[in-house]
């Protein structure tokens, strides 16, 4: 990776995008639940104090208030950590926001295990599963600063509920300002033919490292950044299955219910293909430095590499036994 690559805080981009949107759209309102410093919504609050509502440590109330504002013509952005927005207020999101297709955009930070020292109670490894199972909910996982800005703008102008998740950690700015960000469309981070790695967020960067390691061994990796989990890019997945015959998914989330499950669900019906899931393996998180946690929970590039090699064996033996890949 380019050593001169900028590291960007997606949370800061969230705030700056909100402020910019707020200048021209007076119906944008922002809510938080006592985490405004961490989610950065506080910055919006400083510029537009009348349109910012910090409801304190009360996530369920926050979602209900957001719904009431949305039902009154506002575009409501509601923020907290992934754990508390998707967990504590899950039923409110389901019954009051998603069911009625309300204009509430749930933007969460601190997704995944990279939250670090706060430990398991604050590390959501289930939020993607919890949100994508809801009808009418769109789930976005922007990769970097530019994608975060585009995701927020997309959500602001598209009617209906959104769940947008970023991590606490800063990320390299990988995509370009002019790159298109389309709901339901993934982006190709690297072309290849032997295997496809589909990833999002921090794990996409591990995927980039894995690609380089595998390239040195003559293995050609297609790397896809799946920045919309719902609606997922079925076309890209199908094409990857047809053209490479092996998928490895990678996410900062349980292997149950997230991206890996979404890909496997789809391919099982359309084109049964081995899907090896990298993620937390049905374990709760714990305290630790993010890199140490990635190592402990097998979320590093070398774990992706190992999964690819394992998968290639399955692919090869399937061919040998005459089963069409």
């Amino acid at each position, binding site marked *: 990776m380019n050593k001169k690559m900028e590291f960007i805080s997606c949370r800061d981009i969230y705030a700056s995008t909100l402020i910019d949107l707020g200048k021209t759209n007076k119906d944008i*309102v922002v809510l938080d639940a006592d985490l405004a410093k961490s989610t950065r919504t506080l910055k919006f609050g400083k510029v537009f104090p*009348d*349109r910012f*509502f910090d*409801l*304190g440590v*009360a996530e*369920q*109330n*926050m*979602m*209900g*208030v*957001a*719904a*009431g*504002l*949305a*039902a*009154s*013509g*506002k575009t*409501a952005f509601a923020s907290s950590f992934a754990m508390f927005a998707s967990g504590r207020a899950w*039923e*409110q999101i389901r*019954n*009051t926001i998603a*069911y*009625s*297709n309300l204009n509430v955009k749930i933007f969460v930070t601190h997704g995944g295990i990279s939250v670090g020292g706060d430990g398991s109670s604050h590390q959501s490894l289930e939020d993607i599963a919890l949100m994508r199972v809801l009808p009418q909910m769109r789930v976005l996982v922007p990769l970097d600063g530019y994608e975060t800005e585009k995701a927020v703008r997309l959500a602001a102008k598209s009617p209906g509920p959104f769940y947008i998740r970023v991590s606490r950690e800063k990320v390299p700015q990988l995509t370009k300002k002019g790159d298109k960000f389309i709901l339901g469309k993934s982006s190709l981070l690297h072309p290849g033919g032997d295997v496809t790695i589909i990833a999002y967020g921090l794990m996409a960067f591990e995927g980039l490292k894995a690609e380089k390691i595998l390239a040195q061994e003559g293995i050609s990796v297609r790397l896809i950044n799946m920045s919309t989990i719902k609606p997922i890019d079925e076309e890209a997945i199908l094409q990857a299955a047809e053209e490479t015959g092996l998928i490895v998914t990678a996410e900062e989330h349980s292997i149950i219910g997230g991206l890996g499950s979404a890909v496997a669900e789809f391919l099982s019906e359309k084109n049964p293909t081995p899907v090896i899931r990298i993620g937390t393996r049905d374990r709760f998180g714990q305290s630790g430095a993010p890199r140490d946690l990635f190592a402990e929970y097998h979320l590093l590039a070398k774990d992706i590499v190992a999964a690819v090699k394992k998968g290639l064996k399955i692919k090869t033996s399937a061919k040998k036994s005459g089963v069409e890949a």
Partner: protein
Amino acid sequence: MAITEKKLKELEKKCNQIRCEVLKMLNRARSGHIGGSLSCIELIVALYYHLMRHHPKDPDWPGRDRFHLSKGHAAPTWYAVLADLGYFSKEELKSLRSLGSILQGHPDMTRTPGVEMTSGSLGQGLSVAMGMALAAKLDRKDSRIYVLLGDGEIQEGQIWEAAMSAGHYKLDNLSAFVDYNKLQIDGKLAEIIDIEPLKDKWRSFNWEVFEIDGHDIRAIVSACEKAKKVKGRPTMIIAHTVKGKGISFMEDVVDYHGVVPTDEECACALEELKDKKDKKDKD
């Protein structure tokens, strides 16, 4: 806007009519919640036929006051009132709870004209009403937001999150009611989880509190008029009611929460209501 004797009599007649509608609807639907639908009829009638500014033919009229039924299981009452006012055809009342109906078992804003917010899962409506009240203030509208809570519903923690924050935000354009019929599904509130002292609780959260007989329309109107004059805090109107009100054999009976009248019971009940109406007409 004090209520005239003439208007009062009209509204009392209207309540009788709505009671009949609700009985028939639930009997036909074969499922639903009769007790809690009957206990809040006077409250909803007073709001829709006297207190609130609204246009049935223009449900989204920006200048309207808004009502939200947080105790969503009383939907039949809301539907009967909305139909009577012309938000949708009275024919629709026959389809309550059936497949494809615009009248779902619990209020659904995506299907029913006049329904401001979906409900059914208890404890969420006060938060929603607060959001509406905030929006009205933001837009400098003088709309009033009304929300009706159940007494069992008060046991939900989210109610108190909303109460605390509405008090903190000084939402004086928000008036909430508790339909205090003292019964919930599993028995008397006082035996399951007592919510007393109720008045003190709301006062301590910076709400102005009124206590009334929830079946006395004059008292309902008077409390709401007083509420309009309260500045700097939201109002809570604790309405003491009787579950199953209006039908002698249903009044104050726990079992009539989630059951519907049988054909026989329905016939008896309608007879009772007809007698009451005839008596009043003679007065």
